[in-house]
């Protein structure tokens, strides 16, 4: 058991999350990618907390991250739902009223 392998896993999850966000054309899937990125950070926080056994800062932070992840999902889905009602799709490319 080494923290190094945990760190490699978290870097992998973060990168995959980033790729999903960049590549996928579906708002709900992008949301999943964001969840992966948040979880990667959580994994890091908990793993690095092992090196400081005197405090639980990392674990408490991870707890707040979870709460905020739930908030983000709720907000995201509320908005996606309304977008779907207006556009009948949740594919960002087909949603193009605003142009620059």
């Amino acid at each position, binding site marked *: *058991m080494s923290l190094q392998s945990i760190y490699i896993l978290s870097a*992998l999850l973060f*990168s995959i999350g980033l790729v999903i966000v960049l590549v996928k054309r579906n708002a709900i899937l992008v949301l999943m990618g964001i969840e*992966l990125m948040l979880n990667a950070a959580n994994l890091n926080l908990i*793993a690095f907390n092992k090196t400081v056994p005197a405090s639980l800062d990392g674990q*408490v932070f991870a707890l707040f991250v979870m709460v905020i992840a739930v908030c983000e999902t*709720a907000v995201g889905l509320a908005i996606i739902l309304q977008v779907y009602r207006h556009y009948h799709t949740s594919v960002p490319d087909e949603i193009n009223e605003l142009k620059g």
Partner: protein
Amino acid sequence: MTLVAFLFYFFIGTAALSAIVLLFLKNIFHAALALLTCLLSLAALFILLQAEFLAVSQILLYAGGVVILIIFGIMLTTKAGGQAVPITNTGLLPGLAVGAGVFFLLLFFVHKSLFALPSSAQETIVNNNIERIGIEILTDYVLPFELAGVLLLAVLMGAATIAGFKHVKN
């Protein structure tokens, strides 16, 4: 290899594998299940990292909250009885290149000292983490705790307002 070490690498494997699968799945519902697998493997890893409280929260909040919400979202945004919308990619190769670049960037510069566990017999510390987290949340972290409550209320109210808006036909 002890059982604990085996489980440790097993769950790292499942988490990594389900994340990679998530990247290439075409069906969005299957993608949600892959995400669920990944999150549950992480919960198992949290237990092995002595963060039992977080493991339970992970299962409750992520598996029970986020994934269910996402599945509801999927159901509400696909036409009833219709085929699920296939997930399309744009710029898969550049995206993968960026991802791989970030991955190696994050691994390349890592300092060895980052992973030095404190030598003072870290296994012998029998600490009741759940009790300690409870005390920390209500002393040091009482302000973020309360603010998180305000945030949850605001988000609950706001999300209900937005999602509940009915378009008036004229």
